[in-house]
């Protein structure tokens, strides 16, 4: 017997009667409120801008403070061309100073933003730039992780999927919260 067979065999011998798959039936408020999202996002260390489609680039320019901007958002690509090269991921010349992406949706209860390969184009782009600006439509908010995963299940399958809730952080040295442990140091969301 190889290890796989040995493992499965030991489990099968001992498993007993299968228990039914439980219903997930929880009481909570299912309305997704913009104000509540802003509160959880700010608590996670995210800077939130309430914008409109027309002033998105204005906010981006202002917040980027002159750094090199790249974007994976189709309507912004011409203005902020994407030059990041996955094959040379640490090449300083290619890493954006600021990366702009659009979240597929956001979760009100914990400020998590959902991305897949489609929105990111390169997976590392969610981690390697020092600043991230994320566009999030007000119509793309869900209340909790339950609705979030229901949506993921209905949607297209993905290769890589990511929930991001705030800038990278650590509290490993004496519980002191420090932003920018390994990933982005700053995260801004433009809610439009």
């Amino acid at each position, binding site marked *: 017997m190889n290890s796989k067979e040995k493992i499965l065999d030991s489990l099968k011998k001992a498993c*007993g009667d299968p228990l039914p798959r*439980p219903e997930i039936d929880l009481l909570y408020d299912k309305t997704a409120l913009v104000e509540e999202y802003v509160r959880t996002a700010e608590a996670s260390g995210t800077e939130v801008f309430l914008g409109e489609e027309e002033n998105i680039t204005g906010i981006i320019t202002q917040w980027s403070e002159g750094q090199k901007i790249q974007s994976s958002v189709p309507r912004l690509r011409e203005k902020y061309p994407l030059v990041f090269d996955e094959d040379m991921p640490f090449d300083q010349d290619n890493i954006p100073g600021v990366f702009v992406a659009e979240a597929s949706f956001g979760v009100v209860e914990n*400020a*998590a933003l959902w991305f897949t390969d489609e929105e990111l184009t390169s997976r590392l782009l969610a981690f390697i730039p020092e600043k991230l600006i994320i566009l999030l439509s007000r119509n793309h908010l869900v209340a909790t*992780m339950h609705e979030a995963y229901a949506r993921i299940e209905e949607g297209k*399958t*993905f290769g*890589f999927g990511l929930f991001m809730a705030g800038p990278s952080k650590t509290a490993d040295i004496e519980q*002191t919260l420090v932003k920018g442990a390994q990933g982005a140091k700053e995260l801004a969301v433009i809610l439009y």
Partner: protein
Amino acid sequence: MKGTHANLSKEFITTSDKTDWHNDALWFLRAKRDKQRDTIEDWEKLRSTAAAIKDHTLSRLADYLQTFEENALQNGMQVHWAWDDAELREITASILRENNARSVVKSKSMLTEECGLNPYLEKEGFDVVDTDLGERIVQLRKEHPSHIVVPAIHLKKEEVSDTFHEKMQTEKGNADPGYLTAAAREALRKDFIKADAAITGVNFGVAESGAVVVCTNEGNADMGVHSKKTVIHCMGLEKLVPGYKELAVFTRLLARSATGQPVTVFTSHYRKPRPDVKQHIIIVNNKRTDIYTDPEFRQAMRCIRCGACMNTCPVYRRSGGHSYHHTVPGPIGSVLAPFYGKEKNKDLPFASTLCGSCNNVCPVKIDLAGLLYKWRQKLTDETSADTSKKMSMQVGSSILKSHKKYGMVTTAFRWVPKSLLQSKFNPWNSKGEDGKKARVFPEVPGETFRQWYKKRQK
């Protein structure tokens, strides 16, 4: 009697400064967890749902593991099975060799810690860098994590500063956490660039989609996974959940219970490798089938390693993680440890007050105190007892059984002079680093409770 919990905690307890500080640091996490709990209307039901999901998954674990493997293979992942720690180490080393990888960046994984992966790889000539800041700190100090979520919780920032000064040439005496974190970020970035392969632990495996899910706050797992051509995920076989619907329940519970955050900053779902990348999943047993086979203890496999039972435990908070001499410390560690050596770990189920606080916070409702109590009975029968303990138990039992003897002994006890009770001959007393007394035997009241009670009755 070296090596037992009581002895190993001695040093930690006698430096009372540090005990209090450690106690407060962990209680801080517990308090944050309570705040998060209060934001969820149906918290208790969320916990019982999580427990039911785990019990269901465990009752069909073999099926779910097969479904998981099929889906992962279809997604282009390579799947391996390791019966024990040695096999995990060998599989990992052979994957690295096949891909000509000499240096590895590794994100947090208590499983690889349990399986002794780092020392093995180093012995085989590989470079391994732990990239989680807390793990990096303990790695540089040649220590082990003292907590499963916050590995360096036992260290003060001055100690971290000294370590970084010595190993990374940071400014001497600069203990600012922001400064130290920035220095580590810079050093680790170089390690990320240099590495040939990335290794991660796994928080959840989703059977119906074949995805492995990794939760971090730093983003360190992703820095490795998305920049290397060889990637290995090491997953304990109990990490499975049936589908996304169930995963939702656990992503709501994990970080809230662990650190009092509503969710970890990054929850990464790895399903398909990038083009030209070889991505492996190693499913590891290492005695989990023994726990599974024991009907009384199977519920311990619900554990999602959130650390909440440690943060709340009055013994853990005051004795520190290293006193448990097992990879996973605290209440859950003491439940698991005897499966990895009854004789060697027989003291651990006794390192608890059985107050049950752990039961109240555990997001998957493991009856930790109940299981510790069960171990005490089993281990007393199944392992050798210390003669001193045996004798004192016998004496104690004969006294407690008889009214008369009890009365005599408690009265006689009052004649023992205070100078003797509070002297160094009584092992209860201990001295701190500064030479001052850290723990002193309390003064014995002049009369017994019975005498006092009788007097009041009059």
